[in-house]
């Protein structure tokens, strides 16, 4: 799995420069839409509808941000997004580390069946599960609560977490656990004090990815909660975009604020996220 590739081509450091220049240009071009989102949020009402459009804002202004915070309850939307995403992350990490640990240690048919079940259950589209979920949560009496959206969303992030974490947990040497038993730790203590700390980095990666998914949750929030006061930012942005004539500078300001934490997390954890994704999806 480790680099470096094609050693013989990389003998001269200079030889790679044209590649690097091309790659940089390509990446910048590819991520242009994200740049466009941020600068659209910084444009004034006059400039957003200027023809030709400006690729660098002539008079950058925070007016759209001010507007959405004062007039459109953006703070409430963001708070609701966090009120969903944080519990989902905790629940996913808790159940995910338990299940992945068990699947990495137990052998036999039971684990095979469990693994296939996890792989199969993660493929069903949320929009299709929304109707039965609606009815289930209605009969449980928890429609219009965060709990409903949290429980529904965690069912998606959990299978994802199990798939990624299982190969990681296999790497913890059993000798470490044996040593801890000899020291008098119970199996539960061994899991908490020995295994989990070793798994810190994979858990951070899975926690981040679960957080990002739950933070961007839309379908379940829209279908399981009808009160506007409870809706997360995704539904808020949608209600902006749905209008016939959207105020795009404001929509983009809202989107920028909303995705900024995700992009910051991503920049910090990029290498680990890439490693985590490739470890899980194909093994």
């Amino acid at each position, binding site marked *: 799995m480790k680099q470096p590739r094609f050693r013989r081509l990389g003998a001269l450091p200079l030889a790679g420069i044209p590649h690097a220049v091309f790659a*940089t240009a390509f990446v910048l071009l590819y991520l242009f839409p994200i740049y466009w989102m941020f600068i659209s949020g910084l444009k004034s009402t006059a400039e957003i509808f200027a023809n030709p459009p400006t690729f660098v804002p002539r008079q950058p202004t925070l007016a759209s941000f001010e507007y959405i915070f004062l007039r459109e309850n953006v703070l409430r939307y963001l708070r609701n997004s966090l009120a969903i995403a944080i519990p989902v992350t905790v629940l996913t990490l808790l159940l995910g580390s338990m299940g992945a640990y*068990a699947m990495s240690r*137990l052998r036999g048919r039971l684990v095979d069946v469990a693994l296939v079940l996890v792989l199969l259950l993660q493929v069903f589209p949320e929009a299709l599960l929304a109707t039965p979920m609606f009815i289930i949560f209605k009969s449980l009496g928890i429609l219009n609560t965060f709990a409903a959206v949290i429980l529904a969303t965690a069912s998606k992030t959990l299978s994802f977490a199990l798939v990624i974490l299982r190969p990681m947990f296999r790497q913890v040497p059993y000798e470490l656990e044996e040593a801890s038993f000899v020291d008098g730790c119970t199996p539960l203590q061994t899991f908490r004090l020995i295994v989990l700390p070793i798994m810190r980095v994979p858990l951070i990666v899975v926690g981040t990815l679960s957080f990002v998914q739950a933070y961007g949750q839309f*379908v379940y929030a829209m279908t399981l909660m009808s009160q506007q006061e409870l809706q997360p930012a995704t539904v808020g942005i949608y209600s902006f*975009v749905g209008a016939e004539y959207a105020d795009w500078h404001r929509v983009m300001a809202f989107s920028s604020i909303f995705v900024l934490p995700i992009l910051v997390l991503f920049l910090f954890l990029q290498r680990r996220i890439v490693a985590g994704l490739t470890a899980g999806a194909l093994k």
Partner: protein
Amino acid sequence: MLATRTALLHVFLFVPIAYLLAFVGFPIVYNVIMSVQEVNLGNIADLVRPFVGLDNYREVMADASFRKVFINSLVFVGVNVVAQVSIGLGLAMFFAQRFPGASFLRGLLLASWMLPALVVGALWKWMFATEYGVANFVLRALGLIGSPVHWLSDPAVALTSVTIANIWFGMPFSMILIAAALTSVPLELYEAAALDGAGATARFRYITLPAIRPALLAIACLVTIYTMRAFDLIFAMTQGGPLDASNVLPLLSYQFSFQQFQFGVGSAIGTFAFVIVFGVALVYVRTLKKEGGE
């Protein structure tokens, strides 16, 4: 101690699996049950509802919009799979060459995939705006189009527009997975082939491609599964319109259930989509087993 440990491991296995069965397995079964019942707003909370056999399925099959949307789904998924895998493969091979910053730049592309799909939809809706959108401006400036394209309101173009947005959104993820598959091809093979005088094309055809074919199949399955799930992005861009031109199965099912309150019909459409993803998922699981060979 070992007995307690085994007991603990079984509890650890049981809890998450029970959770998934309750919140994914049960809804799937419940969906199938609803698809053979008459379910409306009045009886949605009831336990006993009129059994209608395959009436909902018949209604779905007879619905002209269903056939259109079914074909849309196949096109949307098919084009996404082909585009994401082939562009992903090309890029992954480019980035596999050693040059300064290669792995950092490759990883950076994943930023598009990290965004919430709904935001990606909103963003592309803005870029595809007919009058003020940046897409039409750039294409006109380059002389590629004469008059502005109605990306989202022209029924002939809408599916293409949401497909482009979804490829942008998902391709980096496919590319990262393909890049991982590429690193597992033994370097010695390339060196031996180069000694034998095999050119770049021959090396790709006879070494790279056969070596990563199983991985490519697994990735194609994953892309199919992820693309079949697409809802937020299309919902934000076009809501499936105009005239179902960019509609896909999950969205149509949602519209029947939550906009027309014909839950039985929505569930029947859902079953069609379930069968498709389930089939693809089986192929995926089999490929993994063969390849992983644990």
